[in-house]
Structure formats: structure tokens, C-alpha cells
């Protein structure tokens, strides 16, 4: 009898952020759907009440069904029979419960049977489901592929596919191939037009495809004969009902074992083009990946939460030397830092989600009418912020997730190394978060341009101007000083115009920006809700030392010594 929404008040705190009023008003077009749909809200309070009630359902399913199944799913895993994936029994039960609860197509418009929710409650549900079972969230969370169909497919395709997703059919995004991982430009799966049948035919192999046997898949394939780069790739929709794709095997992974990672063989599989030819990688995959990265950030936060809670419970129960181990400074220091990293990454997650929500909703409104100049300016602003914050939260959030999982095992001591405690599974599950949907190193590549162009610095300056509780004024003063250190480090690295030097220092610069941003976010959280006071202060103490460390390294580094590192 656990409810992962009700037992975690920080979720409600983020759900009720002041910007939500505007997001929901835009998303609901001033509540005009209330006339057409009996389940549409008629004002902000009504909408927020529905968000909460629906999150309580998601929290209950996460706590009562998904979490108790996690261990058996980890042991049993999915398997392949005659080229088809059979989920572990618990996985199927989890999915059935979420489908019956109507938690599919959460953010899709009502005309396709979606709930038309803002992304914030959707990401929040993903946060809770991930806490329950990190592997399972992949299957359920692939519903965000439907966003890509909504954004780029034609109306006929939307009407054929989106209601199916809302009714519970699962999805997959088939991008990676044996020789095209991080470098998707090398995709070789061949798409040829079948003029007789008015469709396309796909041939080739895909690898590492999560939920590869899902009902509806988005497939990146080479439609332009003779091309070798990203400009020859298009996006296709494959419907499993048409056949032509078999699962050759599933990978035997370290963690997230309930999530089937498939090798797929396409043999003349029927498919239809999604959007325009040649835009597959350069436009659609980029959009798809940004959504997926936000999903992985949510997964990271959920796993972090699970890791922290397991550690906290154990440290309270476990007695050594005559007292609970949480009484020892070495242990409570670890736990408080875990909590601070958890709260910091969650604040960054929902800040990013709001940015994405704002610009995507404006984009959607622009499909119906032209935006006013003010709206257009706001859309651009949030689009840029979303672009800057997504790699930041995916990169840093997944690293914190790994650190928390590591510390959770550490707090369990020898017991944590045994299969008897959940932290062992959490530790294995956490490991993938900093790898897939772009490694942390690739997130840094995406984030660094926002260091050099000043997106982060400008946003930090904006946070500086926000009202905070008087008691945090001294912290803000120090943050202003840290920001100067950050700006000086950026100046030192960029002034040389040496791109290798910039790439070499990129991780440090991005982390500095992230540390300062998360410090500000927690100050704002603590201003609105005193429960965040400890995390805000603990995180700031850590951030200050981290920024100083990087600043010192960059300040004292002689760029001509990079060769020492290159040799390794």
C-alpha cells in the first residue's frame, strides 16, 4: 500500500510551480475544450485538481504494482519466441495496469483520445514509475514517440496511429545499427519505394532497440540511394500488424533487465514515410532525441530517489557499535549529499520540462493561428532554454543518479553487494542512464555551445534577479561571486579560439554552469517551501567547492600540456 505520489511531497511542490498557470492556460487554449469534451477542465484549479488526481493513480500503480514486481522482472526478464518478444510476467501486469488506468497518450490532444496534459505531470509519472522499476519505464515511456508522429506526420497518419497509442499500444524508436550508434549519420537500413503498393520497403538490421517488438515503430532509414551522410536519411512509421520485422535476439544486459533490447531484422517490411524525405535525422531524430533525453533525465531522478530511500531506510535500521549507522557523521554526510543531489536534479528536471512545455505549446498554437510578436519572442526564448537545459539535466542528472546508486550500495556495506537488497538492482539499473540517448560526453557536446554563447550565463543572471527569502541573501551573494569565477573560466578557455582546448575543458565548464543553476533553483524552491532548506544549503556547499575546483584547474592549466593527456 504505497503511493509514490502522496509519499513524496516534493512532486506536488514542483507540480504547483507558479509558471504552471500559464502553461496550462496555453495548453488548454483558455479552457475551450470544456465545451467539447466531458473530461476537459474548465479552469486552472479544475485542471490542477485533475493533474493531482491522475498523478495519484500513477503513484498508486507505481507503488502497489510496478515496485513489487521489479525484483521478479529483474530475474525473469523478457524472452524471444519465434521472433517475437514475450515480456516478463510482471512487466505485462505493469503495462496492463497503466493502460487500464488510461495513462497512455498523456500529453496528446483530446481529439486523438489523449489527456492533453502538460509535459510536467507526464514527466512526473515517469519519475515515479522509474523509482518503482527503471527498466519498465522504457516500455511505458516510449509513448513519447507519439509526440513525433503528432508533430511531423500528416493528419491521416495522426488519426490512424495516435488513438492506438492512447489505447495502450506500445512504441519503439529504431535508430541504432551495429555501425551507427552515437554517429547516426552512418545508418544503413535501406528504404526503397514500392510504387505498386504505394508504400516503402525496409531492409536491413537494427541493434540495441528498446522495446523493438513494440506495436508501432519510428524507423530511421536511408531513403536516398548513393548517399552516405545524414542528409540521405528519412523517418518511417512501421506498423507491426503489417509484419516484416523479426526479433533476432535480445541483449543480455547489466541492468534494466525487464526492458527488451532487441536486434531487429527487416525483410521487405512495409512502412510509410513520416514527414518529408531527407529530414529524418537532421530534424525529426533531433526532436525525438530531445524528448527521449528528458525522459532519461526523469528516469535518472526516479532511480536517484529509489537509491536514496533504500539507503536512508537501511541506515536507520542498521545498528553497529550500539547505534543506528545514520548517527555516524560519515553516513549522515553521505545521505544528506545524496538528498541534495536528488533534489537538485529534480528541480532542474522540472525547470527544463516547463521550458519544453512552454515552447512546444506555442509551437502547437502556431499550427492553428499565427502567434503575436510577443508570443513568438517567448517561444524563441523558451525553445533556446529548453535546448540548453535538456543536455544539462540529462548529463548531470544521470551522473548524480549513478553517484547516488553507488553511495546507496556503500551505505549498505557488505549487504549491498548481495542480491538480497534492492540497492544492488538499482546500482545496475542506474548505470545505463549516463550512456543511452547520448552519453554524458555527448550531452557536454550539446551543452557547450550554451556555455560559449552565454545562454547559461544569461539565465543565471535572470535567477539572480528573482525574489528569494531574506535568509538566503548571503548565499546569493556567494553565488554571484561563483558566477564571476565561471565567467572568468569561460573567458579564459574561449579567448584562445582553440577548439581542442575548449572540448578538453567542456565538461568542467558545463558542470560549473550546472552547479550554479541548480544552486539557484534550490534557493527558489526553499523560498517557496521551507522543506528544501537543508538541500539548498547542503547543495550550495558542495557546488561552491566544485566550482572552485574546476575554476582552479582551468585557471592554472597550461594549454600547451594537453599533449600529456592525448598520449593516454
Amino acid at each position: 500500500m504505497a503511493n509514490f505520489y502522496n509519499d513524496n511531497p516534493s512532486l506536488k511542490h514542483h507540480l504547483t510551480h507558479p509558471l504552471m498557470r500559464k502553461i496550462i492556460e496555453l495548453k488548454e487554449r483558455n479552457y475551450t475544450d470544456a465545451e467539447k469534451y466531458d473530461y476537459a477542465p474548465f479552469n486552472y484549479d479544475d485542471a490542477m485538481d485533475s493533474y493531482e488526481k491522475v498523478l495519484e493513480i500513477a503513484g498508486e500503480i507505481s507503488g502497489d504494482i510496478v515496485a513489487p514486481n521489479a525484483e521478479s522482472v529483474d530475474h525473469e526478464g523478457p524472452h524471444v519466441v519465434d521472433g517475437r518478444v514475450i515480456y516478463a510476467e510482471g512487466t505485462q501486469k505493469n503495462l496492463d495496469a497503466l493502460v487500464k488506468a488510461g495513462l497512455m497518450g498523456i500529453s496528446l490532444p483530446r481529439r486523438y483520445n489523449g489527456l492533453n496534459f502538460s509535459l510536467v505531470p507526464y514527466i512526473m509519472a515517469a519519475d515515479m514509475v522509474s523509482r518503482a522499476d527503471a527498466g519498465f519505464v522504457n516500455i511505458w515511456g516510449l509513448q513519447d514517440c507519439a509526440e513525433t508522429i503528432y508533430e511531423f506526420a500528416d493528419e491521416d497518419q495522426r488519426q490512424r496511429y495516435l488513438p492506438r497509442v492512447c489505447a495502450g499500444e506500445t512504441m519503439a524508436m529504431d535508430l541504432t545499427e551495429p555501425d551507427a550508434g552515437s554517429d547516426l549519420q552512418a545508418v544503413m537500413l535501406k528504404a526503397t519505394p514500392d510504387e505498386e503498393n504505394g508504400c516503402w520497403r525496409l531492409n536491413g538490421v537494427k541493434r540495441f532497440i528498446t522495446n523493438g517488438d513494440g506495436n508501432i515503430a519510428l524507423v530511421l532509414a536511408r531513403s536516398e540511394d548513393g548517399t552516405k551522410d545524414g542528409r540521405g536519411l528519412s523517418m518511417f512509421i512501421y506498423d507491426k500488424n503489417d509484419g516484416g520485422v523479426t526479433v533476432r535476439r535480445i541483449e543480455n544486459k547489466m541492468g534494466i533487465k525487464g526492458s527488451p533490447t532487441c536486434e531487429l531484422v527487416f525483410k521487405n517490411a512495409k512502412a510509410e514515410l513520416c514527414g518529408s524525405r531527407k529530414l529524418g535525422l537532421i530534424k525529426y531524430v533531433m526532436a525525438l532525441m530531445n524528448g527521449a533525453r528528458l525522459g532519461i533525465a526523469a528516469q535518472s531522478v526516479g532511480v536517484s530517489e529509489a537509491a536514496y530511500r533504500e539507503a536512508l531506510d537501511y541506515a536507520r535500521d542498521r545498528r553497529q557499535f550500539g547505534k543506528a549507522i545514520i548517527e555516524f557523521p560519515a553516513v549522515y554526510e553521505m545521505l544528506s549529499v545524496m538528498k541534495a543531489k536528488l533534489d537538485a536534479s529534480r528541480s532542474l528536471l522540472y525547470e527544463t520540462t516547463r521550458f519544453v512545455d512552454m515552447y512546444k505549446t506555442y509551437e502547437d498554437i502556431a499550427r492553428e493561428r499565427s502567434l503575436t510578436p510577443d508570443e513568438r519572442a517567448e517561444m524563441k526564448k523558451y525553445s533556446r532554454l529548453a535546448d540548453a537545459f535538456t543536455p544539462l539535466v540529462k548529463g548531470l542528472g544521470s551522473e548524480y543518479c549513478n553517484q547516488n546508486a553507488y553511495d546507496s550500495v556503500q551505505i549498505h556495506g557488505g549487504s549491498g553487494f548481495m542480491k538480497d537488497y534492492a540497492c544492488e538492482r538499482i546500482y545496475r539499473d542506474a548505470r545505463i542512464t549516463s550512456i543511452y540517448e547520448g552519453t554524458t560526453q555527448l550531452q557536454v557536446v550539446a551543452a557547450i555551445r550554451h556555455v560559449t554563447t552565454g545562454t547559461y550565463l544569461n539565465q543565471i543572471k535572470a535567477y539572480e534577479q528573482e525574489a528569494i527569502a531574506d535568509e538566503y541573501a548571503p548565499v546569493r551573494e556567494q553565488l554571484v561571486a561563483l558566477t564571476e569565477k565561471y565567467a572568468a573560466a569561460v573567458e579564459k578557455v574561449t579567448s584562445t579560439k582553440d577548439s581542442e582546448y575548449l572540448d578538453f575543458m567542456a565538461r568542467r565548464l558545463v558542470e560549473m554552469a550546472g552547479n550554479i543553476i541548480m544552486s539557484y533553483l534550490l534557493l527558489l524552491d526553499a523560498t517557496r517551501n521551507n522543506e528544501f532548506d537543508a538541500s539548498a544549503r547542503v547543495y550550495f556547499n558542495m557546488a561552491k567547492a566544485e566550482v572552485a575546483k574546476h575554476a582552479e584547474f582551468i585557471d592554472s592549466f597550461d594549454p600547451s600540456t594537453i599533449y600529456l593527456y592525448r598520449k593516454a
Partner: protein
Amino acid sequence: MSLNIIVLAKQVPDTRNVGKDAMKEDGTINRAALPAIFNPEDLNALEQALRLKDANPGSTITLLTMGLPRASEIIREAIYRGADTGIVLTDRTLGGADTLATSYSLAQAVKKFGNYDIILGGRQAIDGDTAQVGPQIAEKLGLPQVTYAEEILDLKDGKVTVKRRLESGVETVVAPLPCVVTVNGSAAECRPRNARRIQKYKYAVSPSEKEKLSDDLKAVVEKRPYLNLQEWSAAYVDADPQQIGLAGSPTKVKAIENVVFTAKESRTIENNDTELEDLVKELIANHTIG
């Protein structure tokens, strides 16, 4: 074939999560300390009803509950999971009812309801643990009854086939419709609340709840007929005042005592006829057995 299904349900204190303050000094339940929940086996019954509805499109599920006006909470809960509507049988005169008076009152409500094909309910409620109300309703309505049901296997041609979970195994029985089926806790768990239904029905209210709404919400409820739940009184179901509430309840609570088992009360009996016989005699003498 579309069915008219009645699900009997009860709002009960959550006795499964009992804390230190669950009992008052005098040994009675401290209801304020226990959240009111949907009786668990009634949820199992609701799931069986929902499966019948899935298999027979056009069917209607009506939740019938007797209790305080706030029992409409479990009607909403049932509607979020797929039930269509509900009735709260509520009246001061119904208070203090034992199983006999309760089953009489509910049977009167079922008669008032009229046209139904099957009545489902949980085996028993977690507050009283009697398992008597379902069977007594069947008796009063002159209907066949199937108890300990685990799964409704089939319903067609005016007959229902039910798998029963008994202590020593399972039994499959066929009963003619209409009949009363009480469902065991081993039956399938109830499906979750549905996100769309919760948004559609969250303002569903009984007449007494409607009175307390803001004018805006009252207008919403008036515009949407499906948001109006029913409240029935004892008089409305033509209940004989002598057969309801305390007046209609032959069960009297003589005394309530707290029994606390402690390890020091344990005794070891040697495995021989004399000692065993002495023990049996002692247990008969103090009315523990016999």
C-alpha cells in the same frame, strides 16, 4: 446481451493499517484514526462486475451501499474504475444495524431498484467479518446464492457459471439468474481508477453533497445529469421501521474486552492422553471450545 448489475459495497474503516490509536479506551473502534476505504472484497466483486460489463457491452453497473452520506465516496471510487452510477442508502433510522437489519434494508433497496440480472458483493467486510449480509439478502429476495466466488467463468442463457474457492479446493457451480454472488478475496484485483473517468466524474455528488458545492460547481452538476448520484431513505425503500436500525437488530453487544496475548500465558502440555484430556476438559469448562 446487456445486463443490469448491482454491486453491493461498504465503506469501512481501514482495519488493515491499524496504528496505536485505532481502539478507544473502552475497546470500540476509533473511527477518526482510521481512514474510510472501499471494503477490499467488494472491490474484487466490482472487478467481476466490470468483466461482465466488458463481455456484455451496454451493461450497467450500479453500486448500492448503505452507510453515512459520505459513503458516496466509494461510489465515485467505483465509477472511476468503470461502474456507471450508484445509490447511497442513508438514514438516521438505519444506524446501529446488525447483519439482519442491514440485509433487510439492502434487500428493500434492491426491490425498489427493480429490474436486475445479477447482484455481486464481497464475501465479507473487514470491520465485521461476518460474511452474513450477502447470503441473507439472497434469502430475503428468494434468490439463489453462490458464495466464495473466485471467478465468473461464463454468463449466458439465463445462467451463470462460477468458480468457488473453498478451503480444500475449487468447485464450479451453475446458478440461474437472477442470483446473488459473493466474491472471495482470492479473486482478481480490481482494475485501477481510470484517468479519463476520474476527470469526467470527479464532481459526481449525492443530493446532500450537492448542497455544499459552490454555485459554479452546482451549475456544472446540473448541466451534466450523470454527475448526480442518488440518496435513498428508509421510507423511500418502504422499510418497516421495526426491522431496521437498532430496533431491527437482535444482536446486542454485551461487553467488549481487550484481549492481549502475551508469552507468559503459554503452557506446555505433554503428549499423553491424560494431559490432553485435562486440557480438553478445561477448554470446554471455560467455553473456549464446545
